[in-house]
Structures are given as structure tokens and as C-alpha cells.
């Protein structure tokens, strides 16, 4: 390139090729296509190689095994399942278990994380130090150890025969938390519908109140009316159905309890382990978000005598959330992935069941591929949902 002089009128043909190679278009498009092509070819080649080698060794390939009968039982199922169902359904059971423990974990991690995060910036020295200690402990111990720790704690609870009684409401034993449950009744479906209607009504009422405030400048407190709508409607439905109040009490019977509902020790241990671990990170994210709001904003809000609740809701949170939500998304995604630690303590999640399927069928490549694709989809859906929420709470530039 040293002999290239700008502004030359006519170029010899040999230079044109070189110009083409160094042109921006060529670099951005052709090289990219070449690289993508090489990657696709490599992937295709690896796939071919695996298929060919497996068939040469007479090892079964393909996804036909998903339709075969599994012949094994699963301890916890959210959908009906027995050993006469297929491997495909067994994996679905595993996925549902992964999703349920992750969902519970996300809720718990968020609640604890936000509480601790707010305590971290509290002006109360004791609260602040407690929060700091908590964060440093849960964040700096590997999540797998935390899960094993909780599993060990729960396993060492008393056996069902000596289970701790919880004020007549249930039992706590090494078989999990067993508690009373209302006997299924048609009223429950209607109460659920009433709850939905109540939530929608509360949202509409809140919006009307805001319009009124924006139009007239007069504030209507919608907190208690909202609570009334959300809780009152189901309660009225319940009364309308003659207040069915039959309860299923857990009773000691044989090895375990009959009646009531049980949350398994593995579920609790796994959920506690992954949720507390993530809550430490979430607390720090929340603290960072709150501290990212300029101090002057709070002071300005105070100077116009805004109530503390409104300062948080209308001044701090909108600005903090745009800092909080993106890193929070990656915490949620990593919590979902951490749930695969289930395999260590025996919670029947996707990986645990996938392992069994892999071993019964011997089709390791396919079983791992199924698990990878499912985790990818779940993580991507979580990210998309959180990005959608992020767009909702992000500051709208007007």
C-alpha cells in the first residue's frame, strides 16, 4: 500500500482486483458470507461424522426413542404420568418441574433481592450491615454447595412419625412440607375467575384515577379500593357458593401422609439454594439501580412535599428500573440454568430425567441435544419477556 498515491486518474487493471479486495463492500459482505459458509459446513460435517460413526458402531440414532414407552416412574409430576407413558412425556414432566422450580425461585429471589437491595441503601446502620453480610455470604458460596446444604438440612428434619406439627395446619418432616388444602370444589374455578376480574377492574380503576388526577390535579388514593376489588370479588363468589369450607387435613398413614398437599424436600432445597444465591446478586443490582438515581431528584421531590411512597414510585423507581431490568434478566436466565443442579440432590428436573432417558436408550447425543435446545428456548423466551418489560418501564423520551 505504500506506493498508492491518491488522486491518480487511470488505474492499471491489476490494481482493480486489489481495490476490490480492500473495498468496504467486499470486506463486509463477502468475507462474512465466506465465514458463515465455513461455519455451516463445519457444523454439517460434524453432524455427518457423528451420524456415520454411530451407525458404523451399530448405535441407534434419531429421535424415534421419544415415542417409546419409558418404563420408569417419576417422583413429582405436574401432569399425569406413569411408567407406561413415553420418553417424550417423561421429558415434558422434567421440563414442567424445571419451570415450576425456576418460577418459584425467581419470585423468591426477586422478593428477597429487592428487600435486601433496599436495606443496603437504608440509613439504618444495622439494617445496612445485615444486608451487606447477607449479600457477601450468599454471593460468595458456590450455588451447588448451597443446594447440597439445604438438602442436608431438610433431610435431617424428623421422620414423618415424629414430624413437627405446624399449629394444626400441616407437618414439617424429612418428606417435605405437608399442609392442609381445601377439598376441590366447583366454587374454586369461579373464585379464580373472580380474582382475574378483580385484578382487571383494579387496573381500570387505577387508570381512571390517574386520568382524573392529570385532568384535575386531584389525587385519589386507589390502594385500598384496589385491595378491596382483588380480594373482595373472590370472597363474595365464595360466599355466593355457600362458603364451602371442607378441608383436607394431612394425616400420618403408613410411611407418609395422606391428604393435604406436599412440597417435596428436593423442591424446597433446590429452590432455596438457587433463589438465595441469585437474591444476593439481585440485591446488588437493585442497590446499584437506586444509587444510580441522582440524589438531587429525591431532594427535589422532597422539597415539593411529595410523600415518601410517591418519591419511590414516581421518581426513584422509573429511573432505577431502567438500570435494574437488563442485568436482572441475566440473573433470571442464570437462575433457570442453575436449576439443573437438581441432578445432584435428586429433584426430577429436565436434566435429571434427561439423564435417565439417556441411560435407558443409550442415545446420549440426541438426549443432550433435546436438553440443550429446551434450555435455549426457555432462556430466550425469558430474555424476550424481560426485554418487553424493559421497554415498558424504560424512560420515554418525549
Amino acid at each position, binding site marked *: 500500500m505504500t506506493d498508492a498515491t491518491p488522486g491518480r486518474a487511470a488505474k492499471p487493471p491489476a490494481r482493480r482486483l486489489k481495490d476490490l479486495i480492500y473495498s468496504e463492500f467486499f470486506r463486509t459482505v463477502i468475507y462474512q458470507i465466506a465465514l458463515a459458509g465455513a461455519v455451516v459446513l463445519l457444523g454439517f460435517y460434524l453432524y455427518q461424522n457423528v451420524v456415520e460413526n454411530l451407525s458404523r*458402531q451399530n*448405535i441407534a440414532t434419531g429421535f424415534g426413542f421419544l415415542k417409546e414407552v419409558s418404563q420408569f416412574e417419576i417422583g413429582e409430576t405436574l401432569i399425569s404420568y406413569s411408567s407406561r407413558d413415553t420418553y417424550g412425556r417423561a421429558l415434558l414432566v422434567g421440563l414442567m418441574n424445571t419451570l415450576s422450580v425456576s418460577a418459584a425461585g425467581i419470585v423468591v429471589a426477586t422478593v428477597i433481592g429487592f428487600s435486601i437491595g433496599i436495606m443496603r441503601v437504608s440509613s439504618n446502620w444495622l439494617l445496612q450491615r445485615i444486608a451487606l453480610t447477607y449479600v457477601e455470604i450468599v454471593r460468595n458460596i458456590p450455588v451447588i454447595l448451597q443446594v447440597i446444604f439445604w438438602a*442436608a438440612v431438610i433431610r435431617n428434619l424428623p421422620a414423618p412419625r415424629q414430624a413437627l406439627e405446624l399449629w394444626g395446619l400441616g407437618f414439617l418432616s424429612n418428606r417435605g412440607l405437608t399442609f392442609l388444602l381445601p377439598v376441590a370444589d366447583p366454587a374454586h374455578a369461579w373464585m379464580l375467575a373472580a380474582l382475574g376480574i378483580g385484578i382487571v377492574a383494579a387496573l381500570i380503576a387505577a387508570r381512571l384515577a390517574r386520568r382524573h388526577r392529570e385532568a384535575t390535579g386531584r389525587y385519589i388514593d386507589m390502594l385500598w379500593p384496589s385491595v378491596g376489588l382483588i380480594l373482595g370479588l373472590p370472597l363474595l363468589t365464595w360466599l355466593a357458593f355457600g362458603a364451602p369450607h371442607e378441608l383436607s387435613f394431612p394425616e400420618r*398413614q403408613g410411611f407418609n401422609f395422606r391428604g393435604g398437599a406436599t412440597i417435596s424436600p*428436593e423442591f424446597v432445597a433446590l429452590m432455596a439454594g438457587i433463589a438465595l444465591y441469585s437474591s444476593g446478586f439481585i440485591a446488588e443490582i437493585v442497590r446499584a439501580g437506586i444509587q444510580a438515581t441522582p440524589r438531587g431528584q429525591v431532594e427535589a421531590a422532597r422539597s415539593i412535599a411529595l410523600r415518601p411512597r410517591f418519591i419511590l414510585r414516581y421518581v426513584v423507581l422509573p429511573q432505577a428500573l431502567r438500570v435494574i431490568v437488563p442485568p436482572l434478566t441475566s440473573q433470571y436466565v442464570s437462575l433457570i440454568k442453575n436449576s439443573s443442579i437438581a441432578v445432584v440432590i435428586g429433584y426430577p428436573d429436565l436434566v435429571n430425567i434427561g*439423564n*435417565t432417558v439417556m441411560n435407558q436408550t443409550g442415545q446420549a447425543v440426541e438426549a443432550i441435544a433435546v436438553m440443550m435446545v429446551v434450555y435455549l428456548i426457555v432462556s430466550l423466551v425469558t430474555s424476550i419477556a424481560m426485554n418487553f418489560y424493559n421497554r415498558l418501564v424504560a424512560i420515554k423520551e418525549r
Partner: protein
Amino acid sequence: MRLTNLSGLGAVAALTLGLVGATAVEANSGDTLAAVKARGELLCGVHPARHGFAAPDSQGNWSGFEVDFCHAIAAAIFGDASKVRFVALSSQQRFPAIQSGEVDVLARNVTATLSRDTALGLNFAPPIFYTGTGFLVRKADGIEKVEDLDGAAICMAPGSTTERNVAQIFAARGLTYTPVVIENNKQLVDAYVTGRCDALTKDKAALPGVRAFDTENPDDHMMLPGIYSKEPLAMAVRQGDDQWYDLVKWVTYATFNAEELGLTQANVDEMKASDDPDIQTLLGVIGDNGTKLGVDNTWVYAIVKQVGSYEDIYMRHFGPESPVALDRDQNALWTEGGLLYGFPMQ
């Protein structure tokens, strides 16, 4: 410029990999034995910790029933039983490990079944240990038979034949149970010992080890009597290498036949002078059995001298003095009412 160089590199790498990868693992007749001889040691896949079958001691030396069969194969090939490298494999790892050629032979509590023989691309040598699904329970619970376990929580390992057998045993009797499936053996045993489960299920032969080593007071625990399933444990090799399969198969038979002919580690030297043609053939004094298998003619002598006959191996690990004593039951010679029947070595 850097980026363009890299993409070129990617294409070259893809091509190179294409050339190299095309000759990936493949078992042809003769390959495995040649590879083992060239390597100078046998790679044997064993259980990470199953008392009696395979477990490393505090110095890292492996011992156990299946470990001895690995030693027997090494003795046949090299005339030196110590030329083995043990690869500890979890129940998930074991089949990919043999399929990919990471180990030459699996002696890892593998139950021979039709689907494993076919879909996994394996060949099974004759079973070296016959057992069945067993249940370890607490005496205080008053459980006497499997019917008493209705509604119980049962701890088991994932992907084992046991997991399926329990489903069938309970379904056939119209019983229910809650499986607690844990891969990590330590966690699995811990779940039973701490009372998370009412019963621990494994192969019958594996339970005495748990009872003796892992429970606080072995007398508080008992195994349910009766056999509820067939579990023939056998060594497995890859399909496609018939010579290697033959060798592993005949090493197994050699230990049976050695016992049948009254050979032991202690008397093998004097028996070498025996006039019995069967003993002479077995020990390679006459005939060319070893040559036919691709090893030295004195291969059986090496096995019996360095490792022992089946009886020697069994008594060493499951004899009355061992911590996991087991009656021989089905694992006796056919002449004594057992199932061990060595094919004639002519």
C-alpha cells in the same frame, strides 16, 4: 486485516478437521488388541466406588471383584496383571465411554439386556456375577416383604436397570411408591441413611457394602429376602471387533474352567506338571489356545497365577471373611447347582 485472516483460518481449520475427523473411532476386528498392546496397558471402565466390586483404597490402588477381571485380561495379554489403568465411570458415563473408545472394556456392574446389546452397539461377555434387585430397609419400620413398601419413598440411581425393575415390580403388585432418583452415589446413600427414603434399592450384591460401610449401625438395617429381577452382570466391549470380544469372553470362561479343574492361585505351579490333558491344554502346556486368541499360550497360567480362578477372585472379595460376605448362590459352578458354565476350551 485481522478479521479476514481469521476467516481464512476458519476455512482451513474446517478442512483439516474434515480430514482428521473422518477416521474417528471405529472398531474393526483386531484393532483393539493391537491398540492395547501398543499402548502397553489395558483401559478398564469400573464403578467409582462399589465395595466388593471396585473401589480405590487410600493409596489409590483399586481392588474388587470386577477390578480383578480387568487384571485377568491384562494378565492374558501382557503376562502382567498390573498393566491396567482403571477409569472410574458413573452410570451415565459408562456407555458413552465404551462407545467412544475411551475404555477398552467395561467391567462396571453392567446388566446384560437386549436393548443394550443392540441399540448401544455393545457385545456382552458371559455374565461374571448373577444378582437381582434388592431393597435395603430399616428394621424398625417392620418391613418384611416388598408388599409392605406400598406408598414408600425409594432411593435409586438414575438410568439403572433397577429404576425400571422397581417400576415393574410395583406395577405388577398394584403398589405405589415415590422414586427419589439421585446420580451421585454419596448423596444417594446419604438420602437413605438420613431417612429421606424408606428403602434403598440397588443390585442385591451392592447392598451389603452400603450396609457395612455407610450406615451408622449395620444391625439396624436389613435386606428384603427374595429375588425380584434378573441382573446378570457382564463385561461389555464394542461391537465390530470380534477378536477382542473373543478374548474377553474366553478370559471369563478361563476363570470358570480353572475353578472346575481345581486350579487355584496357590497350586497352579504344581498343577502345571499334571498329566490331565484338560489342565495341560488350559495352562498352555499343550495346544495353541493362546495363539488362536492372539495372546501368549501361557495366558491362562498367567491369569490363575497372578489373579486366580473364579473361586479365588470370589472368595477374595465376597468370602466369609470379607466385609461384604455373600453366599455364592447362583454364582457357583454348574456342577454345584450354580449358573457358571465354562465352555470347553479345546
